[in-house]
């Protein structure tokens, strides 16, 4: 289960509203490569992890993504809370405003609501880990895109840079998890069977030394 800690993983203190930027950053909340998708992807996939390294990585990265979705929604909230009607109308924010005022609701910048099609949980750990490696790169690219626009606004760029750096680290961890899964399979044919369906979990924690 999850316990709440009353702080953000990295501080967000934005003083100046900006509806245009908020609309873009919203994509990292409810968009195709955003943090809600990341969190649900990993927390869903963990049930099909074939070993405890993989379970731990999916669980613990998925948990960190919850902290990230909180940061992104905080950024959007602080960018929109004090908007005037004039700013809302001029900045292309009116479409969102009419349905949500300046509330927070997960959607992509282009308007598609968050939905499960934005991630996959295939029930196959090799497939899942490749999906996750790609997901971290997609998120990194999205933050790159955001940074091109906000790089000279430190109060926004700072937390965005932090989030981007974390994607790179997660990518590394998923690579290691993939390695651990492949190490337990026949090196001549990783695809001979689906270790999450065709066999049970291979080791319990008491047996763990170097290869869980």
């Amino acid at each position, binding site marked *: 289960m999850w*316990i*709440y*800690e*009353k*702080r*953000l*993983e*990295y*501080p*967000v*203190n*934005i*003083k100046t509203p900006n509806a245009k930027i908020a609309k873009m950053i919203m994509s990292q909340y409810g968009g195709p490569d955003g943090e809600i998708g990341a969190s649900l992807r990993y927390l869903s996939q963990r049930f099909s992890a074939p070993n405890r*390294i993989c379970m*731990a*990585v999916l669980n*613990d*990265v998925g948990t*960190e993504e919850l902290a990230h979705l*909180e940061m992104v*929604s*905080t950024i959007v*909230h*602080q960018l929109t*809370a*004090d908007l005037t009607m004039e700013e809302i109308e001029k900045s292309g924010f009116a479409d969102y405003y009419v349905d949500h005022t300046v509330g927070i609701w997960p959607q992509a910048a282009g308007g598609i609501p968050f939905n499960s099609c934005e991630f996959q949980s295939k029930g196959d750990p090799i497939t899942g880990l490749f999906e996750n490696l790609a997901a971290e790169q997609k998120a990194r690219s999205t933050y790159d895109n955001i940074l091109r626009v906000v790089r000279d606004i430190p109060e926004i760029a700072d937390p965005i840079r932090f989030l981007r750096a974390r994607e790179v*680290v*997660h990518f590394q*961890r998923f690579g*290691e*998890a993939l390695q*651990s899964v492949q190490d337990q399979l026949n090196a001549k044919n990783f695809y001979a069977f689906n270790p999450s369906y065709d066999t049970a979990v291979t080791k319990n924690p008491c047996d*763990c*030394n*170097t290869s*869980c």
Partner: protein
Amino acid sequence: MMNCECNCTCQKNDISREQLMDIIDQASFAQYDMLLYLDTHPDDAEAFAYYRKQTCIREDALKQYAQHYGPLTMDLIDDTCSDSWKWMMQPWPWEIKKKGRC
């Protein structure tokens, strides 16, 4: 009592709320990043020692913060030595720090 060789400065009363939160943020981040690393490198003893050290700093700072400012987790509510329900009443992390707002 834990014997962690913390060397914490948080015992002093002159540390500000912001400085204490900074210590919590940094130790917590170092701890969590190391947790992820240990998930795939469970035998790295040095990493585990670093994890323990950051945990110690973090827990000490969280307790200090609870005593002076408010509980950041429900388990720290008892450390506030206060009868008021600070968990709800102290600011929430997304609140905007500006004039006219909480």
